[in-house]
């Protein structure tokens, strides 16, 4: 029996070795990974030093080592932010990119041994949920006083360092000009031309719908969406797939489409355009926050500072997102002052958004 156990553990060790050795060539051949691994070994010393520095209490702590950031798309922006921060501070950024859902799933799966320092999500409601669950660390980054007042919470836990809004995106080869308000899209001339992103997959569409219903009241609000559904509105998929349907002309109009995708498509020369209906829309700040479990708190704070720096805010603007600071505007898209906004209560929205998203899918499937 003892022999068996011994053999078993030997086998386990072998397996572990196989796992590692199988990956070794990858590490050598991967540029990003090899950088990480060499940085890992190189940084072991500095980290120890900075630990010492902390214990001896020498004040401006030397920032070295790494910061682990979980960011949603756009990918180009995430890469640029990582590179910019690294150039400015010398701190290595390890980033995991995914959808808001993938990031949340990953955070949940690694709860036992947390890895991430800073998290950015694409939906303000999801940021509020993390805050309410007590998972965040309070820190007021430099320049946070310039952030729009509604894009931060009162405890300095979450900051909308960038934002998107939803609008109506249309294919200009099918409709040269559209300016209808939400309810007017139920008109006969838009019959079977309407699409909407799946609100159960698109956080911005979900937040808009709940904001709309919060503002108009449920009876009046649902009457509008039911009339659009009756006008042949379909759900082609999450944000990208829904925009895809309009770009390729399968549908003429994307209702509640996220704006920055449309701006970048338009800039490429695709026949799409976007407007914000006069009835008002919801601006969705993309919350950035430090996790309470962050292993590199100092670096995490530095990264938050960086996110609100001039450099980072300009990168945000270049990616067709709304910058979080009110003193920086974007030259290539509608700015906050140009967008008609619905007055909404986020707490109500967080509580009701799930059921609303589900109901929208149900009425569109009929």
């Amino acid at each position, binding site marked *: 029996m003892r022999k068996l156990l011994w053999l078993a553990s030997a*086998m386990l060790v072998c397996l*572990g070795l196989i*796992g590692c050795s199988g990956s070794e060539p990858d590490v050598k051949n991967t540029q990003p990974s090899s950088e990480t691994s060499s940085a890992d070994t190189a940084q072991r010393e500095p980290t120890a030093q900075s630990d010492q520095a902390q214990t001896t209490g020498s004040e401006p702590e030397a920032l070295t080592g790494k910061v682990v950031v979980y960011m949603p798309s756009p990918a180009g922006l995430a890469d640029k932010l990582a590179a910019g921060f690294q150039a400015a501070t010398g701190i290595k950024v390890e*980033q995991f990119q995914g959808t808001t859902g993938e990031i949340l799933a990953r955070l949940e799966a690694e709860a036992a041994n947390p890895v991430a320092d800073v998290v950015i999500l694409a939906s303000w409601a999801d940021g509020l949920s993390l805050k309410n669950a007590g998972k965040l660390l309070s820190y007021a980054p430099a320049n946070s006083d310039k952030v729009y007042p509604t894009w931060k919470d009162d405890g300095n836990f979450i900051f909308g360092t960038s934002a998107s809004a939803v609008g109506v995106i249309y294919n200009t080869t099918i409709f040269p000009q559209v300016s209808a308000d939400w309810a007017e899209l139920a008109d006969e001339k838009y019959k079977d031309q309407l699409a909407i992103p799946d609100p159960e997959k698109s956080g911005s569409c979900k937040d808009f719908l709940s904001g709309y219903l919060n503002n108009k009241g449920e009876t009046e609000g649902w009457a509008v969406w039911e009339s659009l559904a009756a006008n042949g509105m379909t759900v082609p998929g999450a944000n990208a797939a829904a925009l895809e349907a309009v770009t390729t002309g399968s549908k003429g109009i994307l209702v509640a489409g996220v704006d920055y995708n449309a701006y970048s498509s338009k800039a490429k*020369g695709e026949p799409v355009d976007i407007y914000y209906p006069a009835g008002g829309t919801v601006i969705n700040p993309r919350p950035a926050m430090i996790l309470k479990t962050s292993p590199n708190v100092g670096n995490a704070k530095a990264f938050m500072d960086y996110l609100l720096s001039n450099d980072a805010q300009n990168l945000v603007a270049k990616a067709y997102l709304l910058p979080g600071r009110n003193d920086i505007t974007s030259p290539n898209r509608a700015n906050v002052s140009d967008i008609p906004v619905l007055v909404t209560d986020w707490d109500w929205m967080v509580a009701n958004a799930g059921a609303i998203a589900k109901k929208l899918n149900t009425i569109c499937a009929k």
Partner: protein
Amino acid sequence: MPEPSPKSSTQSVPSRVYFWGRRQRRGLLPSLIGLVLVVLIVLPIVMIFARAVMVDGRLEFSGAIRTMTNPENLTTISNTLLLGLAVVLGTTIITLPLALILARTQLGRQKWLDTVLMIPFMTPPYIASMGWILFMQKRGLFQQLLPSSGAWSEKFFSFGGLVLVMSLHIFPFMLSILKNAITNISANMEESAAVFGGGFFYRLRRVSLPLISGNYAIGALLVFVKTLSEYGTPATLGRRIGFNVFATNIHQYATISPIDFGRAASLSGVLIFICMAAWLLQNHITTRASYQLVGGKGNRVGSKKLSRLSLITAWFLIAAVIIVAIGIPYFSVISTSVIKLRGYGLAAGNFTFAHYLTLFESLRSRSTFLVSIMLAISSASIATILGTIIAVTVNRFKSRLSKVVEAIGLLPEMLPGIVLVIGIMLFWNRIYRFLPLYNTIGIMVLAYVTLFLPFTIQYVTSSLSQIGENLIQAGRAFGGSPFYVFRRITLPLLVKGIFVGWTMTFIISFRELVTASLVAPPNTLVVSTFIMREFEQGSVSVGMAMAVICVLFTTSALSALSRFIDRQKKPAINL
């Protein structure tokens, strides 16, 4: 002749088993394998299912039961089952004639067909369905080519279209199993039937089909189970037509806030239950209809020369499958990759190779491609070694324990990938302090091995079931040690099955998306996540260009490999 065994008199299993030339106690190997499987598969599954039934540290089943018995699930269950059965039927219709043609006629000599017919399986499901959508949708490529057809192509967006796309994606699985099985039927069998006056269809019905029904059951189970746990196609095409299945619901609980791993696990419990039932049924059929076709007697592969007319029909059939399964989706994929502005469709002057240049530019700065290849090779190799050992051991010991081992080995196939992946993350993150594998490339290899072990087990089992006991016994009678017998008889006979298993695992690891998008360590991008990122936020055309390059690479690598293996093949293998 088997050694008389003192311990167990009922089975013709040698009491002492020599493995790797070492004398060991019987049952040691199965327990060892069992242990590895427990760590790889059982513990991760336990970790995630604990989320379903543990509330504040104590067992609480009411929540899980409520999730499972939710009346809304009834529609999902019936949808899921309906889809699974329809896809099994669809693949059978596509596969059976192809397998007969390739195994029994001179067309089998066209080795390139083997690789080409594998392409649908190399194509990631979400790309294939996107290809179909782009082709069939309103103002899609079909309507651009044939404007006079009206809205005819939009009929594709229905249950039938979903079944078609899924069957076309998965049929290579069934094909490789059936073709191998039919090839192993000696021509003697059919010829004896012919001598006694059996006509073609009589022979098919009474000789060939019954002989392969055991293997068909294995193939059908794989297709059924894979369809049930498949996410890509139902998520892209199924949701669009309002056809919800379990896998999409499970994904929703796992990756859409509020994240609830427990509910995802509870729902997959229902799925496991259905799949286990299907597995028991398959086992029953396979044991009843297992024919040891590979024996000591010369096994002539019956290659019939077809008449001119039949030959044309056969080629026509193959061409039709290739055009529908590869031609249509790849027409969309390739044209998307060379279209300048997608809003203007197929129009003169709207074509460019710029997307490929962009792609090469971004590939030069990252080693996405290389990482994916290394991942696929190491995962496929480890999974194949492990899978072969498991299948061989299970087959030799035939004890209850080994049946359990086999069942565990198949579990990953019955769960939607995401559930097991989250289990793996929960488990390896938890033991990070003891074994720091989480957040390295190692965890990806490990996850792929865990997920794709069932393929290798099934492929080796399928070939094993055809090897006659008499060959092994002959080897033993002439004094070969069990290890010698394994090395010189069993293994050479299995090589084909093992190679196919390796190939399948390589292909599927190369294109795997769900696992990579959750478990990849920071700053690591593989082919699938690269494509998805382009689809989500970058340029769909660049993503499609990447898909084209990947398929070109996989196809040429595999055909080079199979040519190499063919050349290395010793005559001894061609029994």
